[in-house]
């Protein structure tokens, strides 16, 4: 696979079969992961804009999905959407990516910096060009008002406050 450093021009949209948007957080002794099934993301002239539907959160338990949507966490009733809007994508020669942008969760907007890698193929099986973006950004969930926690009997808490958002996008050129 070739690595390029030029910011790709034009409008690119996610191939959802090969893309994912999720989060990771330490839960007592291990890493807990969740994902969002419904999202809309575009890379337009080097700027990434994405929205995520909170009610589409998926974990392995429906009760936990409901809890994640409650006021303890995302409060999907009042804030049904997460939003990310980036500034210009920066791609180093080795494909390392730095992406600054504004992240909105639960009505609070904060600057975040995502790090990751950029990949590119000139032609897939049908000749189309593809861009890969893998991005990670760690935020303190309390800054967005996701404050729930539970103390453990001998000290400490069930859930870490640092949450890593993990985005893997396989982008194809939008039909014009």
């Amino acid at each position: 696979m070739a690595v390029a450093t030029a910011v790709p021009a034009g409008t690119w949209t996610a191939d959802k079969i090969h893309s994912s948007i999720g989060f990771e957080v330490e839960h007592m002794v291990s890493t807990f992961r969740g994902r969002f099934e419904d999202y809309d993301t575009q890379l337009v002239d080097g700027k990434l804009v994405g929205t995520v539907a909170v009610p589409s959160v998926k974990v392995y338990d429906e009760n936990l999905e409901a809890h994640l949507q409650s006021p303890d966490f995302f409060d999907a009733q009042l804030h049904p959407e997460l939003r990310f809007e980036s500034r210009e994508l920066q791609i180093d020669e080795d494909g390392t990516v730095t992406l600054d942008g504004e992240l909105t969760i639960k009505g609070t907007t904060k600057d975040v910096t995502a790090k990751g890698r950029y990949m590119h193929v000139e032609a897939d099986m049908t000749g189309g060009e593809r861009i890969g973006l893998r991005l990670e950004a760690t935020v303190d969930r309390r800054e967005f008002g996701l404050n729930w926690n539970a103390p453990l009997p001998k000290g400490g808490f069930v859930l870490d406050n640092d949450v890593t958002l993990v985005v893997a996008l396989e982008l194809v050129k939008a039909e014009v």
Partner: protein
Amino acid sequence: MKVLGISGSLRQGSYNSRLLRVAAELLPPGAELEVWHALGDIPPFDADAEHSPPVAVTALKRAIAEADAVLIATPEYNHSIPGVLKNALDWVSRPIAANPMRGKPALVIGASTGMFGAVWAQAETRKVLGALGARVLDEELPVATAPDGLDDHELQARLADLLRDLVASGAALMRAA
């Protein structure tokens, strides 16, 4: 906007039922209180029956689902929540993911004949409602020395403020829907 009022006391002359009637008069314009009178019809919680709950439970769950906000007035028995109220909330909570209190604005108030105004029962009721996923106002209204305390003007002004916050929380949800 409809606020469902639940008194945690079954007693005919209950001060908490009376507190709900005071609250009904203090609600902001456009909001009305519907008081739930059938708490005593709810049988003891039985997890074996949670998928086919008794009629009284289904009716309470429907009333909560149809309300825009819930107001609970609770007495305090032995420093805690009355069994009938906790029992009803246990029924309402099942299944937890789809329970009608989830995301529902809720305010807990309480009256007692003593000096403390059911303050512990209120705290524990807020905790239980939080477990159900309700949008619980983190406020309390201890009405001490009932029934005289019910007539206190300062207390009624504070109750009116809390009811305004409760209704505002319900209105915010209606706008977001």
